[in-house]
């Protein structure tokens, strides 16, 4: 039998509950600020108003499924323009790649909804049940009235936040004040989505927490492809901390092995074991460790945002030195400034710029009027009593402006073709003048007749043009004029 090495340790890990300890510091302050801004945006944006005139919704950001419109402040998208949404998602993805290659897992640690809502739920938990030690003690102890009441209060608060989250979600799809003022009018489908997002918030932020990051989320599994030696990651400077030990013992490094970094970690990992899937890069261990270092009168930054290249350089410089200020100085001196401009980041930046430019261009060049021509195929053409030939077309005019208008229809094709639009008014010169209401689609049936003298081939390209009053073309569409075989 070939030697396949020692049997691996068990791959099975029973779930153990994590009790993250509260922590104060620079990173924590940034995280609170980010949380406030993001949650503030999420809960308040549906309440922003934007006047679009009578008959149109006045909610600034609204996905109006019933009327198939997407409103975003001054932008109003129709279903056929869903590619703007696609473009936005592509921008988001490339932006995520770029941010990850520059600063590591900042998305996971600071802005991911899972992180933000879990942070909020943990804050509520600490206010009601106390910090790490109090909660561990109460959970391990015997059942008590106090424990039950605190649990009820915590879950009630969680459910309240979850319900506000589900409620805010449906407000992006229907008018926010109407939903709040007339809950009786809310349809069953809307209640379903409210319940869905309430439940997922409650379960994911209250119970699943770090398991979402370590077991459910696909992103940690492939983001390694965006990281390199020059990306900033949360790192333990082992060249400075090892060997761990009590500060009063001789020959020990800066790490006092106090486990503060492990206690504050929301995913329960030990950052001193190096880069790992469980680390979401939130940096709370940095705050915890800096706090201990200050108390020990040692320099901060035993754990910090650092590149793997710098870590290797420091390690090489400090390898031969004994623990102490000299080793620290040598290690820190070996570091190089952050390399933000690398082929990888330039490439992501370039693609980001191109996609953004294409989307901006598409947005600026967006036509407010469009014309679609559908030739009738039953029959393909009609023979007339004088020997002429007639084709029928269905014209669809979509006017995305709020005002609507009347547009001249012109036909471009072999001279002699006669154009008649059924039930359409005409201008003084007898040309069809097609009315469309604002934010609407109008459909007309056009008859194009070739007199017998005009001997056309059986397949003749023609174009319909919509003109403004001054004769400038606003929209056009091509089609064909069919006739009998000659």
């Amino acid at each position: 039998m070939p030697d396949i090495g020692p049997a691996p340790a068990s791959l099975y890990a029973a779930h153990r509950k994590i009790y993250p300890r509260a922590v104060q510091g620079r990173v924590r302050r940034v995280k609170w600020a980010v949380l406030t801004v993001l949650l503030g945006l999420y809960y308040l944006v549906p309440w922003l108003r934007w006047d679009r005139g009578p008959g149109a919704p006045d909610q600034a950001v609204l996905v109006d499924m019933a009327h198939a419109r997407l409103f975003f402040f001054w932008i109003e998208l129709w279903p056929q323009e869903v590619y703007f949404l696609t473009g936005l998602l592509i921008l988001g993805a490339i932006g995520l790649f770029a941010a990850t290659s520059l600063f590591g897992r900042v998305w996971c640690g600071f802005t991911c909804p899972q992180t933000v809502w879990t942070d909020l739920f943990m804050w509520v938990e600490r206010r009601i049940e106390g910090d790490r030690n109090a909660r561990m003690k109460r959970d391990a102890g015997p059942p008590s009235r106090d424990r039950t009441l605190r649990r009820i209060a915590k879950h009630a608060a969680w459910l309240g936040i979850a319900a506000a989250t589900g409620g805010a979600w449906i407000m992006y799809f229907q008018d926010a004040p109407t939903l709040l003022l007339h809950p009786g009018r809310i349809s069953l489908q809307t209640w379903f989505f409210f319940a869905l997002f309430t439940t997922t918030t409650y379960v994911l932020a209250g119970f699943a927490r770090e398991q979402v990051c370590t077991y459910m989320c696909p992103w940690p599994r492939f983001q390694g492809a965006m990281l390199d030696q020059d990306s900033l990651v949360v790192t333990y400077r082992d060249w400075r901390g090892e060997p761990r030990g009590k500060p009063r013992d001789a020959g020990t490094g800066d790490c006092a092995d106090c486990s503060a970094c492990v206690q504050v970690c929301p995913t329960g990992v030990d950052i001193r074991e190096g880069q790992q899937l469980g680390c979401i890069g939130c940096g709370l261990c940095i705050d915890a460790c800096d706090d201990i270092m200050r108390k020990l009168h040692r320099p901060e930054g035993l754990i910090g945002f650092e590149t793997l290249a710098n870590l290797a350089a420091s390690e090489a410089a400090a390898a031969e030195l004994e623990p102490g200020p000299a080793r620290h100085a040598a290690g820190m001196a070996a570091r190089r400034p952050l390399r933000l401009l690398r082929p990888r980041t330039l490439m992501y930046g370039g693609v980001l710029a191109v996609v953004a430019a294409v989307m901006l261009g598409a947005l600026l060049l967006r036509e407010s009027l469009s014309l679609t021509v559908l030739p009738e195929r039953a029959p393909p053409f009609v023979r007339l009593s004088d020997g002429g030939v007639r084709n029928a077309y269905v014209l669809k005019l979509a006017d995305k402006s709020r005002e609507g208008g009347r547009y001249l229809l012109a036909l471009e094709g072999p001279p002699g073709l006669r154009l008649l639009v059924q039930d359409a008014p005409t201008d003084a010169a007898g040309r069809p003048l097609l009315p469309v209401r604002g934010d609407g689609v109008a459909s007309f049936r056009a008859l194009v007749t070739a007199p017998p003298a005009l001997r056309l081939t059986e397949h003749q390209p023609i174009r319909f043009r919509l003109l403004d009053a001054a004769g400038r073309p606003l929209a056009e569409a091509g089609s064909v004029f069919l006739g009998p075989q000659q």
Partner: protein
Amino acid sequence: MARKPETDAATGVATTGHEWDGIRELDTPMPSWWLYTFYATIAFALAWVVLYPALPFVRGVLGADTRRQLAETMATERAKAEPILARLRAATPEAIAADPELRTHALAGGRIAFATSCAGCHGAGGQGAPGGFPSLADDDWIYGGSFDDIRTTISHGVRNGEDAEARGTAMPAFAQAGLTMAQIGDVAEHVLSLSGTGPANAAGATLFAENCAACHGDRGEGNRQVGAPRLDDRIWLYGGDKASVTRTIAYSRAGVMPAWQGRLDPAVINMLTVYVHALGGGEQ
């Protein structure tokens, strides 16, 4: 079981006791939520069998019946459509065409009614078919293309023998009415010359004046009162080559169309009238 249950060291869970190539299976109990969900589905199934039709010939306690639901849905929808149908019934096709709201309903309803009742002969877009099924989209009408003419034709039909007011008269089969085949050939040539598609034929012209002009007019301009088609245009119901025209004169032709009065709601006949009028050949 004689064997003592074996416990897995890593998880503390008993194994099933079987071993396959060194692999043992944990005997982990099912999660209780899963098990209760399973019991709940059994309870749901039992309740379903009692309440709804699930077994052959058993209706279930609630008496649910999808056929009845369909009938109810149809009745409800019909009741919803009734106000607009009443207006379509009361108005003339001309008035319907002039009213944008009624016209929209008539064109939509007429399209469906046409596909159901008319397209079998006249084609999906009213283009007609060879062999006596006239095109309704062109500008040639045998019995007239005004709203009133179209409605009369739809209501009473053509030569159907079931409606006293049905359109159409019989054209004689001239092979049995005293003309020789040679004479009929002359007439056919004259008929084709009326639309400029054949050379003149003097003998045919004389015979035409004697036998045909009473109905079809001196110059073949047709007569809608008796349903005598125009012969001076380029549209031929049974073919415009000499052989076809000769055959028509010799043996006559007599297309039929059912009377739709009594078969269709008057509102539907009005909608059909407006729809056919709008196909492209409607006359004022």
